[in-house]
């Protein structure tokens, strides 16, 4: 078959049954398939959010609305059997004093903070490398580009590698290093797409010829122009790191547990309604983040396709 096309001969003019079928049903079939996939992907998300407000689920659909009991369990606002699987409280002693601060919603706050630290590292690391491989052509730039946009190591492997590498580091620092490494490709991709839309050489040369030094050109001309990519990269890295599981599962310590471990404990041990509330907490974050990305002109997590 492929030989026909390569030799340039004209395919059979008799279109046959398959041809007639594709002419009549092809578009409808593909459209239906897209609809089916969208329903398969989105329905459970909606059902989970709705079920988180339900008091009972024994039939096809959840029932007994509206109750906030599941949310109270998950947020740790009621002292019941499921309290171990709530977000918990983080007892933080202030260095230098005898003061102990109780941080509520510990798992969530902890993970969001570590992920934020990861974003800072990703900015320092990801923006320069994205600029270097987009603007300059040098030995190894192609390889460096591939390494920067494809994660070097899958999360679970990195977790095993970390078990004996930094035994004396606190879990929070270990998680920070891991999240930074695992999420940097998303930052590089997002920033690179901004850089590729700019004429970097011309911008740089104009600024330089007007007397700006090279560091000043980069910091005050190039980087501000890539603002959109930098912002959407930061948002995506932050969200993905806050819910990272595979690496966290290998290296976390208790008190406070990372957010993804809180989700895991609920998924494996809680009833379906409380789990629905726990997972909906994350959906709420992603929905907010998606709206923020939309306002930056980015369609959801679409750059996350490369992984």
């Amino acid at each position, binding site marked *: 078959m492929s030989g026909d096309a390569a030799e340039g001969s004209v*395919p059979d003019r008799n279109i046959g049954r398959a*041809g007639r*079928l*594709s*002419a009549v049903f*092809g*578009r409808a079939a*593909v*459209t239906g*398939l*897209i609809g089916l*996939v969208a329903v*398969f*992907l*989105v329905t*459970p998300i909606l*059902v*989970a959010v709705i079920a988180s407000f339900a008091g009972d*689920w*024994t039939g*096809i659909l959840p029932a007994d609305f509206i109750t906030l009991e599941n949310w109270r369990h998950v947020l740790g606002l009621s002292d019941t059997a499921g309290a171990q699987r709530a977000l918990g409280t983080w007892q933080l002693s202030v260095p230098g004093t005898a003061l102990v601060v109780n941080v509520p919603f510990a798992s969530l706050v902890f993970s969001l903070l570590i992920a934020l630290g990861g974003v800072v590292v990703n900015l*320092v690391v990801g923006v*320069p*490398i994205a600029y*270097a491989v987009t603007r*300059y052509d040098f030995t190894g730039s192609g390889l*460096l580009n591939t*390494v920067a946009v494809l994660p070097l*190591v*899958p999360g*679970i*492997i*990195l977790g*095993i*590698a970390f*078990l*004996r590498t*930094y035994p004396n580091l606190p879990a929070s620092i270990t998680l920070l290093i891991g999240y930074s*490494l695992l999420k*940097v490709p998303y930052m590089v991709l997002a920033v690179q797409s901004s850089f590729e839309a700019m004429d970097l050489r011309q911008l740089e040369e104009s600024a330089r010829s007007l007397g700006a030094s090279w560091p000043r050109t980069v910091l005050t001309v190039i980087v501000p122009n890539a603002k959109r990519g930098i912002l959407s990269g930061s948002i995506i890295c932050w969200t*993905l790191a806050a819910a*990272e*599981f*595979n690496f966290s*599962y*290998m290296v976390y310590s208790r008190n406070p547990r990372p957010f*993804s471990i809180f*989700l895991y404990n609920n*998924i494996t041990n809680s009833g*379906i309604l409380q789990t*629905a509330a726990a997972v909906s907490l994350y959906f709420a974050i*992603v929905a907010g983040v998606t709206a923020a990305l939309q306002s930056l002109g980015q*369609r*959801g*997590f*679409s*750059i996350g*396709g*490369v*992984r």
Partner: protein
Amino acid sequence: MSTLDGTGVLAWLRGRTGGLLSPRTEADRERRRIAALTLPFLVLATVGAFVPLFYMFRMSVSESRFAIEGLQFDSYVTLFESVAAAVPVVGEGIAADPVYGEVIWTSLWFGALTTVVSVALGVAIAHGLEKYPLPRKGTLVTLISFPISLPGIVVAFMIQIWFSQTGVLTNFFAALSGADPIDIALTGQPPETTLAIAGLFLGYLYSMIPRAAFLLRGSYAEVNDDAEEAARALGATPWQTFRYVTLPQIRPGVVGALILTFRTALAIFGTVLVLKALSVVTFRFQYEISNGYDLPMASALAGLFFVFTLLFTFLGLRYTSAEVSA
């Protein structure tokens, strides 16, 4: 370079580093800028990947399960004997336990199967999104991209909402056919049963279809519409147009998507951990760690897995027609 003797190399090196520290020419300055821009990444890659990987390989040949001590190659011997024992016909004469070979084989066939299905569906989705005037296309794109943000454990829960004993579809079909929901649920079944594997299969697809679709959307954006219109005007059917005009243009993108999606499939862990339907390599790590803490064995298996994915990805992207456009 081959004519340089020892001192020549030293002088050349000194010239290079001297150029970096106190550049005299514009080329030197550019080299210094590139070095400054790439340094943070190289530091992170060293601290976050190279050093831990070194310790992982060192741990895989350690005599102690808890610390780096001594030198042994037992874990690799066990691993390769096990792989050999799992090979049909040849393996029958080998007395080793084939468990690692079986785990690796499961990862490969299940990953390949889910990859092919995901990329095929991804092509259809990318095609429709690019070519057809679908209603609310922007919203559709956002919705299909949403699962990319979900960790594997949440994906497993999404599958439970559809197909567990209390799941929506399980109970729907139970009400329709009169069967007991326990008998037709796809999750919560004993491992390696057909129903459990079907549930895991759908879990893999849930993560992989969106990734495959968005990888292919990049390739579709570069397709030449004029050629397709010409083919249609000359009487080709939609299928012939796709087969002879569109497919040759997106083929490098499809190969790239196959490579990267297969990579994703091999690295899935959370979904398997929750659904427990098949023992794949990532699931075996967890078993080695939680049953006797056999870190040398887990490290050896992780090392093999890492080298395989690295070679597979880079050789695949380098020596096939693969193209990745995000």
